[in-house]
């Protein structure tokens, strides 16, 4: 099977909320110093989904990442996990993309890759939390899509997906080629074994500039945006936490219950 996974490098979403800063003058997030970026969580799960198919059916996994200043050790992680090839769409012209310009550039890169059976994406990226790019790629390529997958199997030339819904899951069957977005319920991404890390170190990523994938320059990065970011800000937290104290944990717990009663919360 020919498998493609789209991954995004993002500021670590699990960094403590207190370290999160916005530069309101430029409407940009200031990455916390000393915290390296990561591959967006659900994209790592997407890599895992592709690896599971490869384990079962064999095949080749090509990882594509769009951005600028991509940290090699970060974007190479899927290779260390077991993917075969890494293509970076890396250029200042891709900066400040929105869902539209990202999906457009990725779809053009995938056209250049040519044949594939399944494209995997994370359900949403951990920075803008939009969840549009996967579906945008599918629409631009004119292929079917299934979102929020917790299980993906290739059965009789079709893809069988379990899709999470609030009260359980749906079973969906799609012909290939198709695009699947995955959710964390698929399972923890595997650790990169030492052998994988050594193999990844030797693989040179392929870098495709805008001219390599034949994009219309007015449709990528900031110029291709269809959404205008008017303002980025941190919501102010009113409210202060009233800390209830006691001689020990049990005493504090009893006093908490009494305080909640007094405040008519109970």
């Amino acid at each position, binding site marked *: 099977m020919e498998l493609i996974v789209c991954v995004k490098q993002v500021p670590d979403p699990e960094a403590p909320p207190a370290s999160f800063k916005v530069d309101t003058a430029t409407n940009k*997030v200031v990455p916390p110093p000393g915290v390296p970026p990561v591959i967006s969580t659900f994209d790592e799960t997407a890599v895992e989904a592709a690896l599971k198919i490869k384990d079962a059916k064999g095949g080749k996994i090509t990882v594509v990442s769009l951005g600028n200043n991509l940290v090699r050790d970060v974007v190479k992680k899927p290779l260390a996990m077991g993917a075969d090839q890494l293509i970076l769409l890396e250029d200042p012209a891709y900066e400040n993309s929105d869902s539209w310009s990202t999906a457009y550039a990725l779809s053009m890169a995938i056209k250049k890759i040519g044949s594939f059976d399944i494209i995997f994406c994370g359900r949403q990226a951990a920075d803008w*939390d939009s969840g549009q790019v996967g579906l945008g790629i599918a629409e631009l390529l004119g292929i079917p899509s299934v979102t929020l997958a917790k299980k993906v199997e290739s059965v009789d030339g079709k893809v069988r997906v379990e899709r999470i819904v609030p009260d359980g899951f749906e079973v969906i069957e799609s012909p290939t080629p198709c695009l699947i977005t995955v959710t964390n319920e698929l399972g923890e991404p595997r650790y990169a074994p030492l052998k994988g890390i050594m193999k990844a170190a030797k693989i040179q990523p392929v870098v495709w500039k805008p001219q390599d994938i034949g994009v219309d320059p007015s449709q990528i990065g900031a110029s291709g945006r269809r*959404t205008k970011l008017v303002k980025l800000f941190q919501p102010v937290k009113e409210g202060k936490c009233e800390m209830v104290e006691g001689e020990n944990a049990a005493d504090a717990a009893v006093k*908490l*219950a009494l305080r909640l009663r007094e405040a008519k919360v109970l």
Partner: protein
Amino acid sequence: MADYKGVLVCGEAIEGKLAGITAEMLGGGRKLADKLGEGLAVVLLGSGVKGLAAEAIACGADKVYAVDDAVLKDYQTDAYVMAMENVVSQVAPRIVLMGQTSMGRDLAPRLAFRLKTALSMDCIELDIDPQSKQLIQTRPVYGGNARAIFTTESLPQMATVRAKAMSPLPRDDSRKGEVVDTTAGVDASKIRAKFVQKVKEEVAGVKLEEAPAVIAGGRGLGGPDGFKQLEELARLLKGAIGATRPAIDNGWVPTSIQVGLTGKIVAPELYIAIALSGSSQHMAGCSGSKTIVAINKDPEANIFREARFGIVADWKQALPPFTKKVQELLKE
């Protein structure tokens, strides 16, 4: 170019009733339509949905497009995108709203790309710029650490709306509206990814989204046994049990009780957060709660920046006496 006017809400039904999120969007959409001086319509897609038209009108809609067709019985991306594309070209709305639900998350982006228009997902506030008449779209980003305000030029302007972010109007059965039967225009041979079946994973007890109290546990509970110990408190408060993502990823509790950005959105009277750190992604699902109470052993935990009341304690020592005291107090 068509003259785009009015607000169109894409409605959803749950178990034969208008979904809560649809009533909320009709409430929010009514305000937008009134600011524009234009109409508020709702489209109901499905099989046997026409019966919900009266309820939608009572909730604020001026017009109901009923697309009642057996081909729309179960949600299937291709069918719904085709049907919505037809409805949008017929209605030419200025604004299209959908719920941030499993349908909206799937349908809205694909439809937006089909219509070559922009979309903002998971909005918590929508307003109209009085001068430009543009839709001002506010949405949490970076897992809830920040908010972004967007505007878009292409029409229709599209947004999905987070559950419980907008208030429904008080139901008014004397309201008048028009019901327009609309054909789906779906060519069934063009449905590629097909719905096969649904597997329900019901959780016993009070429904999480409707519970007056939610007792939520995190990674610090250490395993399924920790969650078992929340049950007594939940029972006393007639509440439901919620969880953070690590508890789900570790298989301690069913996926359906995850609270947060990528789980359920709850807004109970009382939210008791036990041994969870209060990550922005988790708070995205519960920050609308009336009172948040935290039990955590780490005085620096972020949950204490979010909670109204808290104690610094090991839950193993604090939970049993807390539960017992709550029981005594409720008996009085």
